[in-house]
Structure formats: C-alpha cells, structure tokens
C-alpha cells in the first residue's frame, strides 16, 4: 500500500485501466501534457497520441465526440478540466449522453466517464468554483460519483471506467493534495455504498466530496465535547446509500447533511426529504442542512471563508440540531 495524493491515486487508477483495456482512452484540453493537475502525467509517452488526445478548446465537441466514440465501442474518459466549463457542453451531456440509451430503446450504451474537477479551490471566484452535483441526480441515465479520499477516488474511477453506464466523476479539486493509501491493484468500488467515517449515536452526519475533511474535523471536536456523531460519506449520489442513511437516522433520530454546494436545491434536500418520507417525520427529532448560502462564490478570502462550510460551522450546526 502506497501513500499517495488523491490526484495521483486517480492517475494510477486511469493508468491501470488503460493498461488493462485498449478501448479506454482520454480526451480533453492539455491531457497530452499531463492534464491541468498532472492527472495524466506520462500517459502520452505510454499510450501515444491516439489514446491520449489533447483537444482544441471545444467543450461541446469534447463531450459529444466522447459520446460518438463510445457508440462505436471505445470507452472514453472525457476530461473537462474544470467543472464550470461543462456549462459549454450541457446539450451533449444532458440531452444526448444521459438520454441516448433510453431514447433509442437500449441500442446504445454510452460508456463514458466524464471527469469534472469541481468545487472551491484557491480563490478562483464564481466561474471556477461551482459544485452542482445535485443537478445530475435529477437527470435520469447517469451515475454521479463524488469521492473524497485517494482510495475512494481510485476505486470509484476504476468502477466508472468499467461501467457501461455514463458516469459523472466529480474530482474534488481542493482535496487533490490529500494523501492516503492506495492498493497496488486498485479494485472497483461499487456505486451506492456509503463509507462510514465514524460510528456514533447522538446524530447522523451525511456528507461527500469537498466537505469530508471539515466534517471529519468537526466530528473530532464534537467527540471531545461528548457528542458522538455517526458519520457517513456517501461517495456516490446516484445511486446513493439510502438504506445506510435511514438505518443510521433510525438510531440517532437526528440528521445533518453537509455539502459544499448551495443549500437551496442541493442534494441535502433530497437526502432529508427521502429520510423523512421513508422513516416518517415521527421517527426523526431534528433534521437540517449545512451548505453554502444562495450566493455565487466570491473571490476575496474573507468573503469566500464566510460562506464556505468549515469545521466550526459544522460543529455549530450539529450543536444547534442537538438542542432541537
């Protein structure tokens, strides 16, 4: 087991799969130079320019060509550089990739992985910081992966590459330098299974992606204050591990969902709604969400910090929830 960064874990996962299956290839801007974050370092040298394709700045076509190539039997990794640029390729993603299997009655299997480094990262401001993963849970036809650790990112990326479903893989930009263990041979992690970060009985905290470290830290602070949180990292939002979350809330009777995305319309609403629907409101004593307010991401550090969910805010939210 090697200790590697999350971005390196992803690199190793893609490398393993490209060695395993010659139909796997990658396209996107600057990928032949290793990618913006080094996630494809060395790929050009090993796989050549037919399988490691640096493209023009043509997001619509990066996405749509990936789809076309999948329709004839290759398995493209579509690298979108920064999530926000996916806005330039939404027709190809939402109207075409997500619907094509269904619309054509099962004739097409768009086995693409769309990699979209997302979230707040080093004061990049409103057009480079969005976290809109909840949107895609609302779109039938796609899997939504939101890993937060090197091992999960690697295992989910392997699963994504092997999946015949289109998988939207949200690389957590701000967690790229985080280190963790990754196995020599990376096994796929099944979609829809949460990772229990900590066992507890006073409240359930559900989170994913960028806010996982903040929740981890907060759970430690809460523990020191005698509050024991049951903490789940969902890892994928569609499918998502409803069963584990419901089982946990059935025990703790308190639910806090934490995510970096704006609270309004975020996936926290779905988690909360679904838990209340399944368990019934009577089984729950308190439920709440912590996300960003409905405000674009500002540039200046004091503004960004004011809005971004962090450990102190998680602690405060959990404590408020326990008073209810």
């Amino acid at each position, binding site marked *: 087991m090697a200790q590697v960064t999350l971005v390196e874990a992803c690199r190793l996962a893609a490398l393993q799969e490209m060695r395993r299956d010659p*139909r796997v*290839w990658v396209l996107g801007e600057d990928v032949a130079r290793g990618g913006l974050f080094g996630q494809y370092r060395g790929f050009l040298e090993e796989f050549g320019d*037919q*399988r490691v*394709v640096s*493209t*023009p700045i*043509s997001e*619509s*076509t990066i*996405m*749509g*060509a*990936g*789809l*076309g*190539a*999948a*329709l*004839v*039997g*290759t398995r*493209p990794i579509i690298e979108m550089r920064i999530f926000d640029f996916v806005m330039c390729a939404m*027709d*190809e993603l939402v*109207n*075409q990739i997500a619907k*094509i*299997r*269904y*619309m*054509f*009655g*099962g*004739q*097409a299997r768009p086995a693409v992985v769309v990699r979209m480094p997302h979230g707040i990262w080093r004061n990049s401001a409103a057009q480079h910081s969005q976290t809109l993963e909840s949107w895609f849970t609302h779109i*039938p*036809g*796609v*899997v939504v992966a939101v890993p937060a650790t090197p091992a999960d990112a690697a295992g989910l990326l392997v699963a994504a590459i092997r*999946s*015949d*479903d*289109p998988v939207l893989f949200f690389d957590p930009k701000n967690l790229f330098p985080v280190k963790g263990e990754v196995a020599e041979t990376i096994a796929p992690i099944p*979609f*829809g299974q949460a990772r229990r970060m900590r066992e507890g009985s006073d409240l359930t905290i559900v989170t994913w992606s960028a806010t996982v470290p903040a929740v981890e830290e907060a759970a430690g602070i809460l523990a020191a204050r005698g509050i024991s949180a049951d903490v789940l990292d969902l890892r994928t939002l*569609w*499918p*998502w591990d409803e069963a584990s979350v419901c089982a946990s809330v059935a025990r703790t009777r308190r639910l806090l969902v934490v995510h970096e995305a704006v609270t309004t319309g975020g996936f926290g609403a779905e988690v909360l*709604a*679904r838990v209340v*629907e*399944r368990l*019934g409101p009577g089984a729950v004593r308190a439920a709440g969400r912590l996300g960003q307010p409905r405000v674009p991401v500002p540039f200046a550090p004091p503004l960004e910090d004011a809005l971004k969910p962090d450990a102190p805010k998680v602690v405060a939210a959990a404590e408020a929830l326990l008073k209810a």
Partner: protein
Amino acid sequence: MSGDNRARLVALYGTMCRIRAFEETALAAHRAGEIPGPLHVSIGQEAVAAGVCLNLRTDDRITSNHRGHGHALAKGAGVAGMMEELFGRAGGHCRGKGGSMHIADFSVGMLGANGVVAGGIPIAVGAAQGLRMLGSSAIVCCFFGDGAINRGPFLEGLNWAALYRLPVLFVCEDNGVAAFTRAESVTAGPGVLARSEALGVPALSVDGNDAAAVDDAAARLVAEVRGGSGPRLLHAITYRLMGHTSTDPAAWRETGEVEAARSHEPLPRLRARLLAEGMPARALDAIEGDARAEMSQARGSALSAPWPDPATAWDDVQDNGAMTDDAWPFGAQETV
C-alpha cells in the same frame, strides 16, 4: 448507358420512391391521428439521402437530424421498425421510446436522428475517431441542415475532424429554410463552402435534387474520405416541399414558390432520365407501386401492432441505480 450505371440509377430511384412513399404514408397516418408527436418530413429532398447512402457500406455509420426518415431508410433501416417507432409501438426500433425525431437502427449503422439542431455533428466526429482507434475502415457520414451551420458545434466539429484527419463526410442538406425562417436571412458571409474550407475541410456543392449528381459527388468524396485524406463536406442544394412539421402549412411562402419548385423536384427528374435512357415506364411504375404497397402495408401492421407494456417505461435508463415500477407507485409514497 452501361448496365452498371443504369442499375445505380434504378437503385437510386427505388430508394427515393421508398422514402417518398414512407413519408407520404406517415403524413397521412399523422393526419389520421395514428401517429403522435411532431413529424418532420423530407419530401422533395430524397435525392440527397439516396445519393449519399448509395456510397456507404453497412458498417459505415451515419448521424442524422430531426428530418431523418430518408437518411435512415437509405442507410438500410428496417421499415417495420421505423413505422412502428413512429406509431409508438413496442416493435419500433426504439421500442416506442424515441418516435420520429429519435429513430436509430444501430444494426445498419444508423446512429440516430437528433432532436437538437447540429446535435449529430460532435457525435459523428467522435464515432469516426473511435472507429479509427479500433482499426476499422468504416467511415461516418453526418447529415445536417443549413440551419445547423449557425450553431457552434458546426465550427467545433469541422475543426476537430480536419485536425485529426478523421474519416467523416459532412453533408449539409441545404433546403434554404430553417423552421419558418429563410436561411439567407440568418446566415452571413459567402456560405457553407467557405466556412468549411476555412475550417480545413475541402467541400463542394451539388444540385441536391439531381440524384445522379449527388451520387457522383458523394462517390468522389467518400473515396477520398475512405482513402485517408481526412474529412470532406458535401453541400447539397435542395428544397423542402412541405412545411417544417406535418402541421405547418408554410403559408408564408411566396405565391408560386412551391409550384415552381415542384418542377425541379428529384423524383420526376430521375424518372424522366430513366425513361429517356430507355427504361420502360411500366418498370418504373412497378418500383413506385411496390414502394407504396410496402409502406401502406407497414402502416397497417404498425396500426395493429401492440403498444409497449407500460412496465417497459422503466427499462434501459441505466444499470446502476435503475428504478423499477414497484419502487415508484406514486413518487415516494410507498413509505409515507
């Protein structure tokens, strides 16, 4: 006229008659309330689909647009599956989930019509890239209208195809109109040829109502594309004899415009040529009659074909996280 050449013209005529008959039958069925949803017919434009596809192999792929019946038929898509799809029946190529705007028949390389203008362009270039990667000698032909050349994917896709020298034949089916707006009133500059060449894709224009001319031009371009010279564009000038959709009377056209166009339409032109070259009228009538009979029979079968079982509405969404009808009686109500 060599036998070979005549056989080609006859094949073109047969395909065109089948497209015309299919669409006239579909129009009648739509008017009779047998076909739901929007229906875009290509009546008057048959020579483009027929002439281009005659030069394609079964393992070649095509992408199409919202007006794609002709492309699908010319590429060899099964008629019963097409007609049933229009009727929303279980035996349709898409099991009733797609309808006219989403006809696809992967078994003959028809990668799908598209409800989004220019939506097939990036798919086509990617398919070509994938085919090359897999070592195939198949090529991709991408059909779109004059309206599509004002959307961004036109630029991106042509640049991309030229850059990677991909085996793609772009076919711009220029019927002079996009929905209810004349092409010239929304398209600046010298036109699609210049745009194509400026993006590194050699292009040529052809009279898209002359099936033999389309066939010749397509033959040349397909040979170049298949030979590894990179992408080419064929600009086929034609005319849409009907409205935008089956319910559009296209009343805004100038008086006499459609009548004038009728005298240039592709079917009588090819018929006249075949007659002049000694083909008996009887033989041509038989081709036409067969086509009509085939389509009318397909209509009858489609009308009595079974509807899809509502339970199939849940199929083919995705493998991971698929919902089923038991999981959804009415939203999440099973648990409240």
